[in-house]
């Protein structure tokens, strides 16, 4: 039999329905892979082997009767940001201690309701704040991809680095992830896989550990565009427990995959030529444009003049909202408590000093500063107005085109420590992805080629609000034209 772990999610679901193999067989195959690979790759921070086998057994019983949901029996990995009932959830922060939720996030519940099997919880940057997983309490995962003739360990990106590692290294069929400034799309680009952030509000945030509430959205990481569409269909729902979730029907996005893009108008924003961007990224972008033209799309030059202000606006909005959200970690109600000198204030201050890592503390201080008395208008309010400007740019552009094509990241995966210790240099990773978060728009990243060192590079398609369909159509056209079949050579 072929190696079950190398199947796409769609093929695995079909194979399970056809009883070519059982859920227990494929689940066991993944658990064996995790067992031999995880010490090196560090993708999983919790492996729920017993639970996985129980869920697989229940799925097999349903499949035997010809029943079951859209993902019946399919083993998935879950980013440690999603609360999972009875399974430790820490957002990879020390401050959550051994926190074990007594409830389930809506996104994961939707996946279980459709029959998926949980393999475990996946590594990430602490509270999703980071671009290389260097801030995880459990240490970072390792990218299965390496440069040609090099054994330097590279990052899988962040914050959903564990999810990307697990999908790229065949340690799950697909994974949940979340994206506040690029945390799904940048890891997808760094590991040669597909990731989509839907329109803000498509997926419920209930039970997702909060970072920046006006930007956070859940989405999948998967091996193909079709797999990402299948995952997203199941993950999204209106939810009465998240008042910002959209109560709209969830389209059958899998049906968009493979549809012709003939006659579609694709915008190319000139402002996405970043200073110092490697020539290879520019070349890849031009290649993407050529592919879409060949598939019958019309290419239109557009301008998004406020693009350069997106990252600075993000670094006001995100830390400000984080400083409010993370005020809940007080060492009293859950998580790890440190007593300090025994007083209440010292308990709070010591708990938070010891529980939060350096990057989280830095962002909480920035957030507290920009929200402190007298500064709200100058910083947060101004940044929210700049967001409106950024959204208006997109609305103008979308009068002329149906979707936008851009690079996904300004570079291929990098090694730990290669970015130095300047926080702003690390923030620039999200230069092409963060605009879609600020404007709340859907955006997908998919692999499009390899650089000279043999590392994957990705392109990004940004759609109109609620038009994930165009994202999937265009992404599938690029996937088809690129015929990206490269896989990391197994060294782990």
């Amino acid at each position, binding site marked *: 039999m072929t190696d079950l772990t190398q199947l796409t999610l769609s093929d695995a679901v079909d194979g399970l329905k056809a009883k070519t193999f059982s859920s227990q067989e494929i689940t066991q195959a993944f658990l064996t892979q995790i067992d031999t690979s995880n010490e090196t790759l560090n993708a999983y921070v919790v492996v729920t082997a017993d639970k996985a086998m129980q869920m697989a057994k229940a799925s097999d019983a349903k499949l035997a009767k010809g029943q079951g949901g859209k993902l019946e029996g399919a083993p998935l990995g879950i980013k440690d940001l999603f609360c999972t009932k009875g399974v430790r959830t820490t957002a990879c922060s020390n401050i959550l201690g051994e926190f074990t939720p007594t409830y389930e996030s809506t996104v994961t519940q939707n996946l279980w309701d459709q029959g998926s099997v949980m393999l475990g919880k996946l590594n990430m940057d602490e509270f999703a704040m980071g671009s290389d997983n260097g801030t995880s309490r459990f240490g970072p995962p390792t990218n299965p991809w390496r440069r040609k003739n090099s054994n330097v360990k590279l990052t899988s990106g962040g914050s959903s680095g564990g999810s990307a590692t697990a999908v790229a290294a065949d340690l799950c069929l697909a994974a949940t992830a979340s994206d506040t400034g690029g945390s799904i799309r940048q890891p997808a680009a760094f590991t040669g896989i597909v990731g989509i952030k839907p329109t803000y509000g498509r997926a419920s945030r209930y039970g997702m550990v909060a970072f920046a509430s006006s930007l956070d959205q859940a989405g999948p990481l998967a091996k193909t565009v079709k797999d990402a569409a299948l995952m997203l269909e199941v993950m999204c729902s209106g939810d009465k427990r998240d*008042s910002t979730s*959209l109560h709209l029907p969830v389209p059958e996005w899998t049906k968009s995959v493979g549809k012709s893009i003939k006659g579609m108008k694709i915008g190319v924003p000139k402002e996405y030529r970043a200073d110092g961007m490697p020539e290879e990224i520019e070349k890849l972008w031009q290649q993407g444009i050529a592919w879409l033209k060949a598939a019958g799309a019309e290419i239109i030059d557009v301008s998004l003049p*406020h693009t350069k202000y997106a990252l*600075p606006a993000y*670094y006001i909005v995100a830390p400000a909202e984080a*400083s409010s959200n993370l005020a809940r970690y007080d060492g009293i109600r859950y998580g790890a408590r440190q007593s300090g000198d025994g007083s209440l204030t010292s308990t709070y201050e010591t708990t938070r*000093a010891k529980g939060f890592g350096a990057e989280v503390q830095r962002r909480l201080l920035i957030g507290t500063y920009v929200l402190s008395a007298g500064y709200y208008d100058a910083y947060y309010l101004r940044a929210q107005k700049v967001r409106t400007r950024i959204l208006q740019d997109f609305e103008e552009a979308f009068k002329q085109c149906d979707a936008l094509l851009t690079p996904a990241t300004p570079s291929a995966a990098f090694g730990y420590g290669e970015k130095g210790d300047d926080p702003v240099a690390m923030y620039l990773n999200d230069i092409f992805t963060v605009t879609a978060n600020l404007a709340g728009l859907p955006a997908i990243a998919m692999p499009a080629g390899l650089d000279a060192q043999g590392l994957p590079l990705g392109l990004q398609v940004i759609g109109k609000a609620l038009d994930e369909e165009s994202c999937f159509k265009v992404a599938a056209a690029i996937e088809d034209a690129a015929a990206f079949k490269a896989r990391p050579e197994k060294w782990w």
Partner: protein
Amino acid sequence: MSVDKNTVRKVARLARIAVPEERLEPLAGELNGILAWIEQLNEVNVDGVEPMTTPVAMTLPMREDVISDGNIRDQVLANAPRTEDGFFVVPKVVE
């Protein structure tokens, strides 16, 4: 606007994070680096611009004001570092 050591001390206090004295100066440097970069937002003309709320206009959903949850004391306390007789235990706050 730039921050000094005293501002960092004040902000850390507001954020309830204990920052050792010797970290105040380096943190002021790091925060100033980020704040200087953020300053470029002042170039944007935002006259008459409303702050962003959402890309998809919608009415905030309303529901009947009825109790829809509760009687889960043990679940609420399940992850607390210290509990006693069904209560959270906190450091002494009243002399």
